[in-house]
């Protein structure tokens, strides 16, 4: 790891003799803006359709037409509460809206309506597995300090050549949840893992599409470095992180940049930086240098938002019941992982992969249900090692793979009943992908994929293989038992990967013993 290298280099610097043994620590905190999946905007009746023609999803309120007033979207509040509950937050009985003022062309009111003084919810926690390539999986918990509702801004489009700015207000007023996490992370990988888990949770709740490429989920990272025992260092904020992969890269880059900076005797300045995904570096953003005073003020057009916290209460027209909403929370990803490990005896890695890919999980559960005798290991191996790898190789999102759970079940059934072998099962994947409605047994027949288990045929292949591989046979007979696999491979080749390997092994062992 790069940061590790720098720590070592620093520790050996004579200048820092006193601090020589003190390690450098990186501290990362995330702020996530998640667009709430909703048919209409947070305070207006306008639709929210992504990709609608410019300036067509704009209510009078969204364009700040004088005299218009905000009307809070109940559905958005419910989504916010569900998300808060799923993240273990305390939902506040009374929350309030505030105006945050700044001039920007895509902010028609001159202020954003947000929740500064009393947010919808506070004090949650997110616990998630951290996967770093080549390292053991570990769990991390990060505090969720605040979850607040707020409006999104519009979009400015700058035409540098014509020196013109154009504004699209379709996004203005879209509902956002801002989630402010505590500075509890240390690395880019941890940050990326947090966001991955958050996305899984939000998707389960259906409160956010989490499509980062559409801007439905946006991540800002606050990053600082300090020496062990010292107070936290001056932080920078990295914005415009557009993908999960970028989160890890941008944060790792920024940590290294800061460590190199202080190693050279430099000072980190409090600034906003932007992640350039092409050049893979963070760049200081010029227009954010001036310290803003947002002149917060209570939003006078929205009464305080009250919710009913009484256990067992029901929602009414005027009051949302938190207890009633808590009953609508589905099984959360971590619970699923635990269930997979306990009930199906899957290992942690497998459980994590299945939960990360909701489609695979769906396939797994549907297949194991209809084929209860099938060892789960066979199913997960096939889904992960074969199906998922196939999709990855084609850069195909598993969600876009057309193969149905039923087809997969038929393949595995054929595999389990020795009708086909694993090789054939693998060959069926592309065939099914291009022809998703095809009948599996038909495909097996048409493509001549049936496994050969007939003893005589197999013995013939075995004899041929033995004849072809005299040296290997010799080695085997001298006691090198592993050499048998080479002969097995030869049989596979001779039979066009169709021979039943179990039978082949038995046959070979018998033939070679008899010799």
């Amino acid at each position: 790891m790069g940061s590790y290298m720098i720590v070592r280099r620093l520790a050996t610097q004579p200048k820092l003799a006193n601090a020589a043994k003190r390690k450098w620590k990186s501290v990362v905190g995330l702020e996530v803006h998640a667009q709430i999946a909703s048919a209409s905007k947070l305070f207006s009746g306008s639709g929210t359709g992504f990709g609608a023609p410019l300036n067509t999803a704009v209510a009078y309120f969204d364009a700040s037409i004088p005299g218009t007033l905000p009307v809070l979207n109940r559905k958005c509040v419910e989504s916010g509460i569900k998300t808060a509950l799923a993240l273990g937050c305390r939902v506040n009985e009374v929350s309030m809206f505030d105006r945050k003022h700044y001039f920007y062309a895509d902010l028609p009111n001159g202020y954003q309506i947000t929740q500064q003084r009393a947010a919808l919810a506070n004090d949650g926690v997110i616990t998630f597995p951290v996967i770093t390539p080549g390292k053991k999986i570990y769990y991390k918990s990060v505090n969720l300090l605040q979850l607040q509702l707020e409006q999104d801004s519009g979009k400015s489009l700058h035409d540098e050549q014509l020196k013109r700015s154009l504004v699209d207000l379709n996004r203005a007023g879209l509902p956002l949840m801002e989630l402010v996490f505590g500075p509890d992370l240390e690395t880019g990988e941890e940050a990326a893992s947090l966001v991955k888990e958050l996305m899984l949770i939000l998707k389960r709740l259906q409160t956010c599409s989490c499509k980062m490429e559409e801007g439905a989920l946006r991540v800002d990272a606050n990053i600082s470095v300090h020496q062990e025992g010292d107070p936290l260092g001056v932080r920078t904020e990295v914005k415009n992180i557009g993908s999960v992969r970028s989160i890890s890269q941008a944060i790792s880059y920024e940590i290294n940049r800061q460590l190199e900076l202080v190693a050279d005797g430099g000072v980190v300045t409090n600034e906003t930086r932007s992640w350039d995904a092409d050049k893979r570096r963070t760049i200081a953003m010029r227009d954010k240098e001036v310290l803003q005073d947002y002149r917060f003020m209570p939003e006078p057009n929205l009464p305080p938002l009250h919710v009913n916290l009484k256990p067992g209460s029901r929602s009414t027209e005027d009051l949302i019941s938190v207890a009633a909403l808590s009953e609508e929370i589905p099984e959360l990803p971590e619970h699923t992982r635990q269930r997979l490990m306990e009930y199906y005896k899957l290992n942690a890695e497998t459980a994590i992969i299945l939960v990360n890919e909701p489609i695979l999980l769906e396939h797994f559960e549907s297949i194991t249900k209809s084929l209860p005798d099938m060892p789960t290991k066979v199913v997960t191996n096939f889904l992960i090692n074969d199906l998922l790898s196939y999709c990855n190789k084609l850069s195909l999102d598993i969600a876009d793979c057309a193969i149905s759970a039923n087809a997969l079940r038929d393949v595995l059934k054929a595999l389990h009943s020795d009708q086909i072998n694993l090789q054939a099962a693998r060959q069926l994947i592309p065939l099914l992908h291009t022809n998703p409605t095809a009948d599996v047994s038909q495909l097996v027949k048409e493509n001549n994929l049936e496994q050969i288990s007939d003893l005589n045929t197999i013995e013939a292949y075995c004899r041929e293989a033995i004849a072809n591989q005299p040296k290997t046979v010799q080695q085997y007979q001298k006691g090198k038992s592993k050499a048998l696999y080479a002969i097995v491979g030869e049989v596979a080749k001779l039979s066009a990967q169709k021979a039943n390997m179990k039978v082949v092994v038995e046959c070979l062992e018998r033939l070679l013993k008899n010799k």
Partner: protein
Amino acid sequence: MRRHLQLSIKQLTESYINGQLSPLSVAEQALAQSTNLKTLNAFVCIAAEQALQQAKESVRRYAEQKPLSSLDGVTVAIKDNFCTKNIATTCASRMLKDFVPPYDATVCSRLKEAGAVILGKTNMDQFAMGAGTVDSIYGPTKNIWSESFSEDNWRIAGGSSGGSASAVAAGLCYAAIGSDTGGSTRNPASYCGVVGLKPTYGLCSRYGLIPLVNSMDVPGILTRSVTDCVELLNTIAGPDIQDSTTIRRPYKKLKLPEIDQIDLRSLRIGIPKEYNCEGLSSEVLETWTKVADLLECAGASVRQISLPHTAASIFVYSILNQCEVASNMARYDGIEYGHRAADERSTEQLYAQSRAEGFNQVVKTRILTGNFLLLRKNYDHYFEKALRVRRLIAEDFIKVFEPPTTEDQVDILLTPTTLSEAPVYKDFAALSNRDQCAVQDFCTQPANMAGIPAVSIPIRLSRAGLPLSLQLMSNNLNEQLLLTVARWIEAQVEFDCLESLQRHAACIRT
């Protein structure tokens, strides 16, 4: 003089039903008269075409014996800070000079649905910031009661809804909508000798009212009589899904008892001593005493009470007003609508220049002060503190309307509306906007702080021949009692609003 002006709204629509009068001829006369009385400058925009169209439709409805309501065919005027679909809504400012709203304010749509004929938009101080209707890009509105119209010797109409008050006083319409943030409806009502109601906050929708101070603004009603005022209130009041601060409870229409049915013997009137303030004219004080005596003679118990935080109110009002103004005015950047300057060197330049050109000095001063008061370092010291004192002011009212023991309770407060008769323009204009408002709003803005309803009713003429009015205030949502008492007083004092027309005619001739 148009004889039908003697009629109440109820009598007017009855005459439409029995065919004695026609909504079209009443509208036509109003339009003609508004031209004759142009010197008053009550209207900033006459929507003649739409008004005549509405009047014709009203005629048709009466012919089919299907009037929409007891307001069908009644002429009304709307203050120019209420959005009116396809009719320019300027707030009397350069900033919104060419702003034509794509929608109707709830108040306007409810009036239209009731069949009212909307004549046009009335003059006001820019963005309703003022108490004289003197700060308008269309020039000041003049008071029809003025003894003279020469040079700067005419009387101001009061403000900021001066155009609406003036239009009603001059008989140009039967009712007008104003807005009331610190007294903007009651103040000009007082000077122009008409009834001016500020309903309970949340009773009438603010949707479409271009805001001054959201937490205090209410649509106001100006009419020549209390019963007419009730007709209007019954039409515009009630919950509105578009305004989250409206009271959710369904509105029950008011019905006032006949005069001879009004019994004041169980009524408890409070006279807040703090309203007998510095600068109160002797004539207003006399009027106040006289009406208090009238009520007492009729069997009401009248006693002095105290609203101890009254003196602080005007300062609190000033802080909250400027803060909300700073925020509400932030939207005027020349991008989506409104005045856009030619300077397009940068977005910031465009904003700065558009705002510099679009707002007058009063608006700019309030924006600057408000933003200063909202700075992180000042927030607690000014805005937050002002909110606390506002609570104390509201509690003053709760303590007299809902005290722990009923012996201390009062039902209605009787106070002056304004400290004097309408000032001469020359004298008024010599003061700064800040001083104008501080004096003018003294008796009216506490009701806005507390959200309670208040009504100004004309009582008599001053020695100079100008209307002197008093204000009644009641507990929240007690418009029924407030207007019943107002109606009783109105019947006793027999103030003739229309006298102004004869006087004006005489004044113009000389």
